[in-house]
């Protein structure tokens, strides 16, 4: 009984829209946008063309790279935070989480300004008399990646930190005592015991970054398109709702697959029992 409001909420605002997208994905596009209530599959074959497949592949690579790097750096940050003492720990966590309190657009523009023509980065390069191409930074893949990384880092850091805080650090002492060096301790004790949190953090970053379109749009300019951009382009500019919906269905299916692969690792429970 207590779950009823939540179920109503989920049906109205999550399941409903999702079903709508699924239905739209199989309808025919109207001549001037809009929808015709006729079953149509032609756009389903169209979306698997070479340039779209390339975009999908690149989106996948981008999301994978973002998730890997945020989890790796988030892991190191979480580890060092959990070894700090109370006061400085609070500060460190605050500083890491702080950017996510700001509006995404503001944050992205801050990066844009930082690397832009009059920004401090170019100023520094000029000051150091290092020759560079002024247009290099204005719409560049690495800047997109930087934007993705900095936006998603807290999403990887927080679950890892939560897991690390519960981690029994005497296990590390035990490993050292039994002769393990730092690398052996990390790979044979720390990572296996935090497997669940690592997978969770990876999925938490990978899924939204697969559909990300604001960051590539603002930082990447028109140089490279990702799956998210493609969908927004189809829906908002080309007014081709069925194609956009088909792409969205594809994206959601991919996410679901990764969710079930990532969030449910096989084997015995990796949660430490105390």
């Amino acid at each position: 009984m207590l779950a009823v409001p939540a179920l109503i909420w989920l049906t109205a605002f999550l399941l409903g829209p999702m079903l709508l997208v699924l239905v739209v994905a199989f309808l025919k596009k109207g001549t001037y946008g809009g929808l015709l209530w006729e079953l149509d599959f032609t756009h389903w074959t169209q979306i698997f063309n070479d340039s779209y497949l390339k975009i999908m592949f690149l989106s996948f690579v981008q999301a994978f790279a973002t998730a890997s790097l945020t989890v790796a750096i988030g892991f190191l940050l979480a580890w060092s935070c959990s070894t700090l003492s109370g006061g400085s720990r609070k500060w460190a966590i605050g500083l890491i989480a702080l950017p996510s309190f700001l509006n995404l657009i503001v944050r992205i523009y801050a990066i844009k300004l930082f690397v832009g023509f009059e920004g401090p980065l170019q100023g520094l390069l000029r000051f150091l008399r290092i020759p560079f191409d002024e247009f290099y930074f204005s719409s560049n893949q690495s800047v997109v990646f930087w934007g993705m990384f900095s936006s998603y880092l807290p999403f990887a850091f927080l679950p890892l930190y939560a897991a690390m805080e519960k981690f029994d650090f005497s296990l590390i002492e035990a490993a050292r005592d039994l002769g393990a060096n730092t690398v052996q301790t990390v790979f044979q004790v720390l990572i296996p015991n935090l497997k669940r949190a690592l997978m969770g953090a990876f999925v938490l970053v990978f899924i939204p970054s697969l559909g990300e379109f604001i960051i590539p749009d603002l930082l990447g300019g028109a140089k490279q398109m990702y799956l998210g951009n493609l969908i927004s382009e189809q829906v908002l500019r080309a007014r081709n709702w069925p194609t956009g919906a088909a792409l969205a269905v594809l994206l959601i299916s991919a996410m679901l697959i990764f969710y079930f692969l990532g969030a449910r690792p096989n084997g015995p429970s990796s949660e430490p029992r105390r």
Partner: protein
Amino acid sequence: MLEINNITKQHGNQTTLRNVQLKIEEGEFFSLLGPSGCGKTTLLRLLAGTETASSGEVLFRGKRIDDLNPQERPFNMVFQSYALFPHLSIYDNIAFGLRIKSRKNKFSESEIDKKVEAMLAMVHLEKYAERMPGTLSGGQCQRVALARALVNEPKVLLLDEPLSALDAKMREVMQRDLRALQQKLGITFIFVTHDQEEALILSDRIAVMNQGRIEQVCHPREMYESPQSAYVARFIGSNNEIPGTLVEDTAAPFVTLQIETSGVQQRVRGQMQGGSLNQGQVMAFVRPEKIDIFKNGAATTEDLQWTQGVQKNRILGILTNLVFRGQFNDAHVDCGNLGVFKVIARLQNNLEIGDDVELVFAPVDTFVFAVNEIE
């Protein structure tokens, strides 16, 4: 074999170890005993290498080891929380150290298997090899932790309150097993505990620690029968305390103190412990089982004489409580301004609550400490 020279440890402005000086012999069961916060665990971690000293040195068989990493020391540790790896089976937990070392020492899988099986047999856990640590009881986890440390054949085994998480019955079993194991293997055990009874039962020698200092190092019996400081006397076993002032007397080797009982001046003789003192405020300690209790006036001259010419100490009081425990009984005796004395004694002549009684104890069982040493 293991020498701890002048070790001091500071955490910020807090000193956890002060000039600790210890020598631990080969094959000894050595206990570090003290209340929480006395520095015993810090000292153990310092030996393990998970903590570094601010000054001083640790020598093992004549070689300095305090600058070595934990993995380079021939020591292994059993942790208070067991610290078993939850993602590994019991077998893999025990094999962990051997597999880590296998690159250097070239243990083959079959050698590892043989050693692990032997360890499992030693701690009676053969059937549990494939189980995960989360499915074992506390006592079983403790055995695994022990096996995991001992399989590496350490020269010294460090144990950090390994029995404190077990229930009383299990603890007793483990105490017996631990002692038997140590005697069988002949490895030096360094055992940290806050439980004085446990230390007395298990150890060859005990070091009592207080606020980062070693108070006394000796055999358990000596610790009980001849405490060198008031702190040790209070920490090991229980005591009745009698405040008084030292007065001149010719009762060597004993000292005499003047005490006041219900307004009457009286003298008590005892042994001065930990240094000599001729005058000043002192405190005398008597253990409950060293006191004989008589109905007032019922004690014979023989009861009252310790040796030729030396009388036993006598204090009067009223019996306020009596707990029957069979062969021995717990008695509480109100001695006026000296407070209530605890006495464990074979009771004579059917004493009853409310009786006037006389407490009699020998000077040799009366330990005297300077008051300034107590606080």
